[in-house]
């Protein structure tokens, strides 16, 4: 059968479409022009200035604190939830599944507003804990889904074997289930971490004066002072992403062989 060229052409165009903005950012990070307009000469000035901006580093610190704590909490809660959903087929689990699934599709703006109004109604100040709660809430669902998918291949005969050999529930959890499920739990945690670092909408509603996260800071910089600084910042972030993806690919390959 002779194949049509059309799908190939669309794929190439879509790839160009995907990489065009990335390319523009990297090129402009070396552009002397302040407004990222026409090319006015090569400079490394934006990178140098970036390292002098205390506020950016502070926002970065907040982002990391939230991402680490929210992914840790959602790893714990999500794994427990996935176990319950996998093992039991009761009415409670039907309700549980709906509860876990809905936050995945509801627009983030609704999650953000509802949490903001809850904290306003309760008279709670906007601090890092509030942000942590918001991020954990949307991360739980993602972790649960990832772990649930991994549980499909989980061999429960291992658990029964351990039971027959006289292991108690804690020993089984610690020495059989967790080691076997660790890759799934970490994959879920990694997803939660990435989503939390990237999150703008929820943080927009829940961050206060002292608790700016990096995406919020970036948005403020787009509007106010220096788009050129953001080009430099994004190029660095892009390099880190490429390195991490390359590293995880390499680790995967080594594990398989």
């Amino acid at each position, binding site marked *: 059968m002779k194949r049509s060229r059309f799908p190939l052409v669309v794929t190439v165009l*879509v790839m160009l479409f995907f990489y065009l903005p990335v390319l523009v950012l990297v090129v402009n990070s070396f552009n002397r022009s302040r407004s*990222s307009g026409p090319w006015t000469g090569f400079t490394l000035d934006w990178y140098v200035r970036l390292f002098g901006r205390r506020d950016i580093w502070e926002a970065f610190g907040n982002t990391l604190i939230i991402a680490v704590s929210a992914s840790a909490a959602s790893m714990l809660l999500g794994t427990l939830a996935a176990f319950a959903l996998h093992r039991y087929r009761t009415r409670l689990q039907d309700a549980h599944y709906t509860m876990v699934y809905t936050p995945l599709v509801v627009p983030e703006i609704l999650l953000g507003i509802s949490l903001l109004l809850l904290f306003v109604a309760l008279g709670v100040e906007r601090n890092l804990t509030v942000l942590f709660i918001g991020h954990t809430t949307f991360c739980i669902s993602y972790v649960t889904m990832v772990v649930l998918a991994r549980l499909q291949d989980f061999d429960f005969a291992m658990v029964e074997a351990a039971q027959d050999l006289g292991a108690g529930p804690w020993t089984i959890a610690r020495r059989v289930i967790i080691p076997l499920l660790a890759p799934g739990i970490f994959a879920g945690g990694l997803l939660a971490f990435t989503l939390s670092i990237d999150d703008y909408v929820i943080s927009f509603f829940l961050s206060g004066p002292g608790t700016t996260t990096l995406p919020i800071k970036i948005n403020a910089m787009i509007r106010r002072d220096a788009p050129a600084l953001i080009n430099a910042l994004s190029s660095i972030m892009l390099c880190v992403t490429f390195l991490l993806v390359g590293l995880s690919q390499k680790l995967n390959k080594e594990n398989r062989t």
Partner: protein
Amino acid sequence: MKADPVRRERLVEVFLTAPGFVWLLLFFLLPTFNVLLISFRPSTLTGGIGEGWTLDTLQQLRNPDYPGILFRTLWVSLAITVSCLLLSVPVAYFLARCSQRWKTRLLLLIMIPFLTNFIIRVFAWKVILHPEGWLASVLAFAGLIPPGTQLLYNVRAVILVSVYTYLPFALLPVYAVAEKFDFALMEAAMDLGCNRIQAFFRVFVPGISRGLWTATLLVLIPNLGAYVVPDIVGGHSSSMLGNVIVRRLFSDRNLPHAAGLSSVLTVLVLLPMIVVILHRRRREAH
């Protein structure tokens, strides 16, 4: 003694379910109902929530601007969804027929730009579409647009950038189904006298309909609540429901009004969700 293991199992179930369930109950379900309740509270002059109950918000929601904004929110979201589907079907078809090596490579290539920050990706488009940017000069040079045309701050820019940010959400579910599609079916159809285009539309496209529905859900619903993209690359003439909600919340500080609009949005997103879920269940019943 005999009921003991059953009760024990039930206890384990509750122990496993409770932490996540209670968390989502407190921080997802309860706040959603709280929003509905707040829409019936009066607003205070200081931008807070007053005591007592009122139908003020319901009155304010009869604002003559709102039907237009609601209509725009709907058609812009639909346009984004349809564009994403139209692009992802041929790409998914191509990927599904690649060799295993190229599949992994191309999927990785698709994912990488989306691991960068969402805000930064939207910002990059602001640079590209800038009236003094190179895209505008190239298009003007080619005579496609008059020089100095504003490519930013309109509905077209909002659709373009939203398609960019949401395309992977359509592409991945469509690809996941297309990969399992049996291409021998298409050859069979062609042996039976279909031409290539007929085989594509009458065998391949229906074969991946499950993926298309998932993609619709994943693109349409978040876009009904879109706020960031129209805020950065859109203008006044392209605000969507999400932008109006944020304006009421932070500029006007009318919390009950914002809560009322959020409740409208909640109903709006529940409708497509119910349609897709019903459709799915009907397919499974067959």
